[in-house]
């Protein structure tokens, strides 16, 4: 049995933030878990995938994040305690459902884990900040800073969800999700009771005019929860006010850098650490900033807390000097040295270590960039080299998210556009409608199921003729080889070629890219077709 399951009450074990979320859910008696993989959230699903059966929990990799959230909601409407996990981009996919879900509220407690990736360590497409959903969806958001808090906040998330009957979000960032640190374990709880969906359209049918009532109910719930936030030990002030009247407001991993910076600079000032990002303890923040001359807001990415502090200071301390993004970056993650330097400026002192001259010296080093690469015997090598050889000059290569996006780097450099999952064929259609240029769009097998099918249908129903190559490596490779509907862990697979044919695509061929001749022949032939054609390039990822 894995330590995460066998670990005893009181024992201290090292857990990744993501695994601490798993343990927190186990200690809360979670019954239903759904997810679609995405770094840096993937370990939540990976771990449940391994332990669910032993733990007596239902777990599924859903087709995409929206379906994962809907599945979790269905289970919750039937009374089950539910966890749904995804990365930031996944929440975009799920958001169409998330917003009304917050209106209706839930039955069984529901926690939604979302992981952001400041610095785009494991993300293409954007440096998205999920905090924006606080206002968009009016969803409560808790922000842990280390593994112990990941576990504790998850448990609190379930409690809040139970009390207010709405989903609660835990927002991690990469340095929390993939930070390993000791966690004190409590008892794993086994939830009992049978699930049953009890009809209640008053709650579950979001139709006007009721929907506006629901919105008001949600806003009231958030205001009610704010009272808890005002008193919660999660929102804690550490250190007392000194004659300089300076203070810091921070949350998540930034708090840890603040502690480090205070030590390094040998400074003392009060630090307001927020565990609730939404609803914020507004009164407590006002009380904190009322007595300050200067406040430094330490947060990654966009200045959400800074703007809130500005708003809250207006009536009670209009002269307050608010520092934040004037000394910290909006793009990229924070690092301890950034916070040390910012705090030094704020407090009008100097760090002992000269970061600037050290950086100058470092930048003078001659270091070649090492790009990520396909594994040395990855079947994609064959696919890209064959396609590159045969594509007429000027062919546009449509890329997407997955291991196949590594084609962007040398030696291939075959990625003329790259956006989100499912978009390569969607954009290819528009280009084909607008021009007579040749387009080859790559789609991963997991991505095809996730969001590629509607795009393919669009090329058929609105009649365009890109060549779509489905990179069928029998797994969701980039995020760590998770199964998908075309290559399930057990049970019957859904065949991609069956779907494509059923949609009416005439030119469909499944090819093992190792058969280079056949592959070449087909590419040549399909590129001449006046309607959409699909090659399913099938050869398993070497890591499965």
């Amino acid at each position: 049995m894995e330590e995460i399951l066998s670990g005893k009450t009181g024992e201290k074990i090292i857990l990744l933030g993501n695994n601490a979320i798993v343990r927190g859910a186990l200690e809360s008696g979670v019954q239903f878990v759904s997810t679609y993989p995405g770094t840096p959230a993937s370990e939540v699903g990976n771990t449940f995938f391994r332990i669910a059966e032993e733990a007596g929990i239902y777990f599924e990799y859903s087709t995409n994040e929206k379906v994962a959230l809907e599945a979790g909601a269905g289970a919750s409407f039937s009374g089950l305690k539910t966890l749904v996990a995804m990365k930031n981009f996944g929440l975009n996919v799920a958001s169409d459902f998330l917003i009304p879900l917050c209106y209706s509220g839930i039955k069984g407690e529901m926690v939604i884990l979302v992981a952001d990736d400041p610095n785009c360590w494991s993300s293409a497409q954007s440096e998205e900040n999920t905090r924006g959903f606080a206002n968009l969806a009016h969803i409560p958001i808790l922000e842990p800073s280390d593994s112990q808090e990941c576990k504790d906040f998850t448990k609190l998330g379930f409690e809040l969800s139970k009390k207010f009957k709405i989903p609660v979000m835990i927002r991690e960032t990469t340095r929390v999700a993939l930070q390993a640190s000791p966690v004190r374990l409590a008892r794993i709880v086994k939830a009992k009771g049978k699930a049953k969906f009890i009809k209640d359209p008053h709650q579950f049918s979001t139709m006007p005019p009721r929907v506006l009532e629901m919105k008001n109910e949600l806003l009231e719930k958030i205001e009610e929860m704010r009272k808890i936030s005002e008193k919660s030990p999660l929102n804690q002030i550490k250190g007392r006010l000194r004659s300089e009247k300076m203070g810091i407001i921070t949350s998540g991993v930034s708090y840890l850098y603040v502690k480090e910076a205070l030590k390094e600079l040998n400074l003392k000032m009060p630090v307001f650490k927020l565990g609730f990002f939404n609803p914020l303890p507004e009164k407590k923040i006002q009380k904190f900033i009322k007595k300050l001359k200067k406040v430094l807001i330490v947060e990654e990415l966009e200045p959400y807390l800074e703007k809130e502090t500005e708003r809250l200071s207006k009536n009670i301390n209009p002269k307050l000097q608010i520092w934040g993004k004037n000394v910290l970056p909006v793009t990229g993650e924070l690092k301890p040295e950034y916070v040390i330097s910012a705090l030094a400026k704020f407090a009008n002192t100097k760090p002992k270590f000269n970061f600037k001259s050290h950086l100058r010296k470092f930048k003078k080093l001659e270091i070649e960039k090492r790009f990520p690469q396909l594994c040395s015997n990855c079947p994609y090598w064959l696919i890209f080299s064959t396609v590159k050889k045969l594509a007429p000059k000027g062919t546009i290569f449509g890329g997407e998210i997955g291991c196949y996006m590594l084609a962007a780097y040398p030696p291939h450099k075959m990625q003329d556009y790259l956006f989100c999952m499912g978009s390569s064929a969607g954009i290819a259609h528009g280009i084909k409608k607008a021009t007579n240029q040749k387009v080859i769009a790559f789609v991963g097998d997991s991505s095809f199921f996730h969001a590629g099918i509607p795009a393919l249908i669009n090329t058929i129903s609105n009649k365009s003729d890109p060549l779509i190559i489905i990179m069928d490596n029998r797994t969701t490779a980039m995020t760590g080889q998770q199964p998908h509907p075309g290559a399930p862990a057990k049970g019957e697979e859904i065949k991609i070629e069956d779907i494509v044919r059923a949609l009416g695509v005439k030119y469909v061929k499944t090819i093992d890219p190792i058969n280079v001749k056949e592959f070449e022949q087909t590419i040549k032939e399909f590129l001449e077709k006046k309607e959409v054609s699909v090659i399913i390039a099938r050869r398993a990822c070497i890591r499965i």
Partner: protein
Amino acid sequence: MKKKNFNIIISGIGGQGLITITKILAKAALIDGFDVKTSELHGLSQRGGSVETAIRFGSKVDSPLIRQGGADLIISLELQEALRACYYASKDSKTMFLINDFVKSIPGTKKPDKSQVLKQLKGFSNKIALVPATNICKKELNKEVLAGIYLISLAVLKGLIPLKAFSVLKAAKKIVPDKYLELNLQTFQLAQSYTLSI
């Protein structure tokens, strides 16, 4: 043990097993009664590009990341990656470099000149040890991927990391899958006979 936390950067290339050796050291630190934090990256960053992990232990660790110029020890599983890790090295911190004498060439670039690399490293640290870990593991155990285990074993055995060798072994037994455990223990033995010169 001094009051200050002990800060280790492990750098290398995706696929060299950095995460496993990071886990072993973290667990060993916990066994020895320290607070400990590590930081790692997954997904895209593991696809054969440059990778680094951080391990910090001591009486109380806050940040999971090590600050610029703040490493006590840098273990690099590849020569050129040691240069990249100079970001964390400084003479103020008396950073020690333990480097695998192994080059994984970067396509489209010329092979790095070892003496040139060492010269550049000297701008950041006076304590540099170059150890042919990959060659030793290939020759003796026929498995290059053990180089990481070899280097952390060496670091612990030669006192470069203030953790007990016994704790590291105990941690390895819990973390390494059963089928590879014997090979890992052999690697540890092998490191015992190496004479380290700095």
